């Protein structure tokens, strides 16, 4: 299968999952929100978040094994930890990530999400440019 076709099929699955979660539970599928609220709110009303996260983690392992997804090259521990810290902090401050603002927010035609997507794309491009070209 052509990689772009495969990418689009994957995107359709991501969109359908977002649709079913919204139609079924009335919730917007945003990973950073689900993860941060699951950690912050330990009450029963958060049970659906843990169920979702279990599916995401288990499903990820299953399909990676099935499709033989290669393991990523190892990188310095400080780099991935700084990145993780920025991603966690930024997504809570900015109320969303690639799924909540990108897939669902754009689907809801939210202007806030459009601004967020343009902003994180811009700083993402700038970061890769600096990390790849300016520092080497």
């Amino acid at each position: 299968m052509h990689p772009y076709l495969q990418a689009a099929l994957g995107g359709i699955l991501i969109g359908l999952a977002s649709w079913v979660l919204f139609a079924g539970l009335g919730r917007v599928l945003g990973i950073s929100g689900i993860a941060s609220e699951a950690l912050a709110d330990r009450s029963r009303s958060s049970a659906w978040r843990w169920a979702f996260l279990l599916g995401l983690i288990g499903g990820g392992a299953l399909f990676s094994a099935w499709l033989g997804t290669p393991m990523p090259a190892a990188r310095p521990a400080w780099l991935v930890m700084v990145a993780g810290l920025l991603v966690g902090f930024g997504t809570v401050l900015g109320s969303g990530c690639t799924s909540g603002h990108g897939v669902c927010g754009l689907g809801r035609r939210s202007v806030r999400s459009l601004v967020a997507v343009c902003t994180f794309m811009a700083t993402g491009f700038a970061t890769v440019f600096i990390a790849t070209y300016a520092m080497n």
Partner: protein
Amino acid sequence: MTTKKSKFHIPGLLLAWGTGVVFAAGLVLSGMTQPARVIGFLNVKQWDPTLLFVMGAAVMVTLVAFAVSARQGRTPWFTERFVLPTRTAIDRPLVLGAAIFGVGWGLAGYCPGPALASALVGGIDVLLFLIAMAAGMGLAKWLHRSSGAR
């Protein structure tokens, strides 16, 4: 009378679990759990457009989804109401937060979804990323609370 809320438990949790599995399938199939693919998309000089196809296809589905599902008078299958973000202001936290997120995303090539979907198969890197991500989320929530919360 059974309320929708009492039906929530098992079917609702199964639905949430199932959407997590399908979401993961989409991420793995599209290659988004491979950080090199994501960094390739963010690289202007050797641009890999894969992510654009993923996001474009996903948004085409959600454009229909949100137009159809939340029509007047409808309610979700297993809960009482749709929970949608109410804020509309383009404010500093939104832009600053998105900017910070983008830097982290570009550094490691992971956003929260793909990182969680690779938790068991991405090696030590992704585990360190996830621990740091949880700490960053906690820090942002703590700062928000201690600043007197708007």
